[in-house]
């Protein structure tokens, strides 16, 4: 596990030195502008606007980082041949994959926590208080992190056997499809061919269910998010990530480097 940690810390250091965290400046500017604007128009929708905008920004920025850096985690090391010297050390290939995943997840966690702090500052600025109901925002942020970890795992899986461009397309495609899992399962029989409906229902159970991670509406309205959903999403993300990473490790362990 020390070796996994070594790879993870180096991945985090790479992200920091490659100025990935500079996106925080952009986020800070968006939140400041939104807070000032909402503070002026004040029609009792401050919380909804700030939370929705903040969570959307956290999600979109996180998705971009997970997708583009996630795909490059393995492919860049192969293309630049930095992996050659590394794999000649006593480091197993699965440890490398796990370390890379942990490193980018750590980067995303730091990034997301920093953005969440900005979101709460903006919320405090417009409401002049933070209430107990605002913990729903924290849960929403946690769900975003789970979602991002899943995207990183998928991006790594695809980058283990295909080109970076295709890996981005496949991951983005799965993400978008995963947002419509509920619709796929509940197609009305009279609106679709039964065979196609059965097929869609079948793959909806295989696709990553990203819909479950979206609690932005509840968080914006200060509604309580059940402990059951938190537990369910945590277990789901952990299991799904474990399966995807296991497949990625199996593929990468057999891969001939150029």
């Amino acid at each position: 596990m020390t070796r996994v940690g070594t790879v993870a810390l180096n991945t985090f250091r790479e992200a920091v030195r490659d100025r990935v965290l500079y996106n925080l400046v952009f986020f800070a500017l968006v939140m400041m502008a939104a807070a000032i604007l909402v503070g002026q128009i004040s029609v009792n929708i401050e919380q909804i606007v700030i939370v929705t905008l903040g969570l959307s920004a956290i999600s979109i920025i996180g998705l971009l980082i997970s997708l583009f850096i996630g795909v490059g985690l393995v492919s860049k090391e192969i293309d630049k041949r930095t992996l050659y010297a590394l794999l000649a050390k006593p480091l197993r290939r699965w440890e490398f994959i796990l370390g890379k995943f942990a490193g980018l997840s750590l980067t995303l966690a730091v990034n997301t926590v920093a953005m969440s702090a900005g979101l709460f500052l903006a919320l405090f600025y417009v409401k002049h208080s933070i209430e107990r109901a605002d913990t729903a925002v924290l849960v929403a942020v946690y769900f975003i992190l789970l979602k991002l970890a899943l995207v990183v795992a998928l991006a790594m899986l695809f980058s283990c056997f295909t080109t970076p461009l295709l890996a981005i397309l496949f991951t983005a495609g799965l993400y978008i499809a995963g947002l419509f899992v509920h619709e796929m399962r509940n197609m009305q029989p009279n609106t679709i061919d039964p065979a196609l409906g059965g097929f869609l229902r079948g793959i909806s159970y295989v696709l990553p269910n990203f819909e479950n991670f979206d609690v932005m509406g509840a968080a914006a309205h200060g509604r309580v998010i059940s402990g059951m959903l938190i537990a369910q999403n945590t277990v789901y993300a952990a299991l799904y990530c474990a399966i995807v990473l296991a497949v990625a490790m199996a593929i990468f362990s057999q891969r001939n480097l150029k």
Partner: protein
Amino acid sequence: MAGIDLFGVYRKNESMAEPAIDIENLTKDYPHGFLQLRKRRSLESLTMQVQVGEVFGFLGPNGAGKSTTIKLLMRLIFPTAGSARILGKPISDIEMHRDIGYLPEQPYFYDYLTAAEVLDYFARFHDFAAAERRERVQRMLKKVGLESAGRIQLRKYSKGMLQRVGLAQAILHDPAVVVLDEPMSGLDPVGRREVRDIILELKKQGKTVLFSTHILSDAEMLCDRVGVIVGGKLQGVGAPSELVGLKAQGMEILFELPAGGESGDLLAQATRTGDRYRLQVEESGLYAAMQRLQAAGAKILSVAQVKPSLEEYFMHLMAADRAQAAAVEERAK
């Protein structure tokens, strides 16, 4: 005794101690074509051993299979057939990597790190304590002449400097076996000299060194034995002198010809350097040539066997391989 047979193939000797590197029938096919269904053989049934404490040069032109062999040993690629052991352990054993150092061809490292950070990163995989890591990193930077550049990010390094970093990370953990893929590549004469000195120092320490190169003078200067690979096939293994000695190219007579001396057509074949002449003849025709020279009044200064250089041997093998490939192509038509 180990030896070279008629075809230059190294014979494994049962009585020898376990070799540092033991390769048996290693074969590698690469898929190619649009559907990747066709196979191109990059390495064919390679069998050879590198003994403990030996400096072994792996020679061959570009694309001959040198890097393929080394990548197979490092498990960067996987063999189609065959097996290999390093220090008695199969190459699939991850613990084997504690005792080997590897310099990739044209190494490239994380350019956002400094040389000291890269070495520290690699040292962590060998479980050194922090103080020992720092000491080793400083020692290695000094050894490869990067002491003053150790705090500069690698993105600002030249190719030669990266090569030195590569060498430093390969020997950082004091491995018993060091595998260097084209270690002189990209280095200026001073850098090449330094790498040569490091290889000789490793030999003095009793390390086993396998390095690939297409610079024959380096191999002749450093290696106890060399293996020549052309077209994915091992063509010969042995001491550089033994290898080329197999194909001695006759005898050379060095002589002076006094004024008015006449040696007829032999003089036309000789090469003149100042007052002296060099004449190359077949071994069987040596006696007759000497008699004719003496009859012509020539003063014979020396007679020596002409041994082709490793370069000539190398070129000969390549020409033979090309001729074979052309013949196969012709038959295919």
